[in-house]
Every structure is written in C-alpha cells, then in structure tokens.
C-alpha cells in the first residue's frame, strides 16, 4: 500500500469582506483546482472568515530572491523625501 499522493500544493488567499484585498491565509494539498477551492473553504473559512477565495498553484508563484533582497530593494533606500514626514518646515500649518 502506498501512502504517497503527491498532490500539488496550493496557496490560499481570502477576502475577509467586500472592499478589502485578498490576503494570503496559508496553503493546502489538493488533486485539482476544484478540490483545492473546496478544501480551502473547509480549512480557512470555518468561521465566516471570507466572502471570496483564490487558490493558486504554489509552483506558479514567482518570487524575489531572498539572498539578493538588499540589492533588489535598494532603490527606495535613502529617499525619505518620498514620505510626507520628510517635510518639516511646513509642520503646524493647518490642513497640510
């Protein structure tokens, strides 16, 4: 008897209510997309946590390389003028 199923891994995203984005909730194994969706409902929305679900095959997700993250995210470093808090001279001026 074989224990192996080798069902693909799926990532689950849940929209908790209208007006909000889908947020990653976790993952699960399922043989196909239909079962993935049903399992995601049973596993991640047992307490009305969602009004909409996405499931995506984990292998279909493209990720940035964790080892090169410093270089990859370098561009915004030192550019704090992109934040409102950079501008001090106008502090105290109303509605600004």
């Amino acid at each position: 008897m074989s224990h192996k199923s080798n069902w693909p891994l799926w990532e689950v995203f849940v929209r908790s209510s209208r007006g909000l984005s889908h947020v990653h909730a976790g993952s699960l194994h399922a043989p196909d997309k239909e079962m993935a969706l049903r399992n995601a409902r049973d596993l991640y929305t047992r307490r009305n946590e969602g009004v909409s679900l996405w499931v995506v095959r984990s292998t279909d997700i493209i990720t940035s390389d964790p080892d090169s993250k410093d270089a990859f995210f370098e561009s915004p470093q030192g550019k704090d003028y992109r934040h409102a808090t950079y501008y001090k001279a106008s502090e105290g001026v109303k509605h600004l």
Partner: protein
Amino acid sequence: MAPTTPQEPGLSAVPSYEEQQSQSRFDALIGDDSRIEPRDWMPEPYRKTLTRQISQHAHSEIIGMQPEANWITRAPSLKRKSILMAKVQDEAGHGLYLYSAAETLGTERDELNDQLLTGRAKYSSIFNYTARNWADMGAIGWLVDGAAIANQVPLCRASYGPYGRAMVRVCKEESFHQRQGFEILLSLSRGTEKQKQMAQDAINRFYEPSLMMFGPPDDQSPNSAQSMAWKIKRFSNDELRQRFVGMIAEQVKVLGLTLPDENLHFDEEKKQWIHKDLNWDEFMNVIKGNGPANAQRLERRREAHREGAWVREAATAYAAKQEQSEVA
C-alpha cells in the same frame, strides 16, 4: 561546475565565508526579534528542530481528534454533538495548518504523514489516555486544551514566521475549546450528586497528565535552552506549568470542585506554586509507547488512512482526466 572542489560545501569542518555571512545574518534577525522566513538561510539544527517540533505538534492535533470523536455519537444533546463536531473539525484544521508550516522547511507532506503512520514520529502523550465517560470531554476541554493554550500562546511569537502565523490562527480558534469543556464540567457539577462525582473523577484523572503536557522540569529538559536561544520557545516548561496551575487553581473554585493536590499552594517567599511531585516515570513510559491507548490510537489512524485510500485514488484519477481534457 568545479569538479575539482575538494569538499562539498557544508561537509567542511571550517565554515566557508558565505556560511559565516549567512550565520551572522541569521543571528542578527534572531537578535532583533525579527522573523525567519522559509527561503532564508538557517542553520541545519534550527531547521531540524523546527521540523520535528511543528510536525509533532501537527500529529498531536490529528491523533487528538480521536478521544473526542469517540464521544460524538454519545453526546447528551444535539447542541453538545454539534459543538463536539466543530471542535474535532478544528483539530483537523489545526493539524493541516501545522503540516503546511512544517513543509515550508523542506520535508514533504507524504513523508511527515509516513512518519506518523509508521510510528517513527511522536505526538503529545496526553492523547494516549482514554476518554472513559462524558465528563472526560469536560476535563479534556478545560485541562488538556487549557494546557495546550498556555503552551501555544507564546508560540505565536516563535521566530519562524510560518509557525507563528499558524499558531495565531490555532490560538484564535482554540479559545472556545477550553470554555466548552469548562461548561460541561459546570453543568455536571450543578447536576445530581452522581454527576458532580463524575466531574470530580474526570478532573482527578486528567490533572497530573495535563501538568505533564508542559514537558519535563527545566533541569531535565536539555533542548529547552537552545530552543529559547533561537526564540522558538519563549518560556521554560516550568514557567508555563506555573502559569497554568495558578489559573486552574482559581477556576476550579468556580466549578465547586477540587484539584487532586491537597498541598497545592502559592509560596509567597519563593513566588511560585508548589504542586505535588509529578510521576515522570509514567510520562516517559507513555512516551515510549506503553500508555493506555498508544497502540489503539495509531491503529485507528492507520485504519482511517487505509479506508480513505480509494477516495484519494479516485480524486487523483479524476484530476488527471480533467487535465487531459483541458489540454485536448
């Protein structure tokens, strides 16, 4: 590439420059109380410890379904039956969250499952005690789930991201488990003399095993220090046990029942609870597989897996067929 490399990386006794860099990045993240994520470099012992801990935790949830599932058909009312079903479903869910977290460390689900089915993996020894009567459902919810919660809340801040996130979800759902158990005991304690006796008897049997759920005393728990240094564990076994015994010492008064520990008291000088000596020989014996229900629990799990084989095969065959017709 580089077939002339004298040694495989990682086999060398002297860490390479890259390894040293990676180790210091890892140490800095832990030092900053930040989180380690799946694709980060991590020391092999950290990966191994986490894989073992998370998968044992998952196995415990899966085996933990059994003592209570056994009472679903005999619950005293439809409401109690629905509650118990929801709780057992939650435990299945918690097992699945945790298996997913464990898998991010690189061991596949089928392998983890295999470790449980072949008896190579451990699970919490508490589930090798039998649930003899309805009052046990109360004692399990109040004491066993209570101890589990005391253990799990600090794990929400475990240094490994996926474990912490799974625990947040588990803890949110677990809080009803303890309350429903407490209310079962409360109903019994307010019932007939015989019912009250049943509740007391269940507490008497589950008190010591629940205190032992926190693991051996600190001076006999060799791996704790490393786990705490890695910030997987945030409090020691004894600290958590202290916290738990303090809570139930108060809660039992509301039940109008007692804990089977006559000399339990808070020592003002030492600032700690003094409870009876726990039977660690029994604990080790149950872990080794000689508890009242070890063989039965594992056999039931194997049976369920066997009986589900045709469902898994059918689903796999259907998926393959669907995929073919989509390609065509």
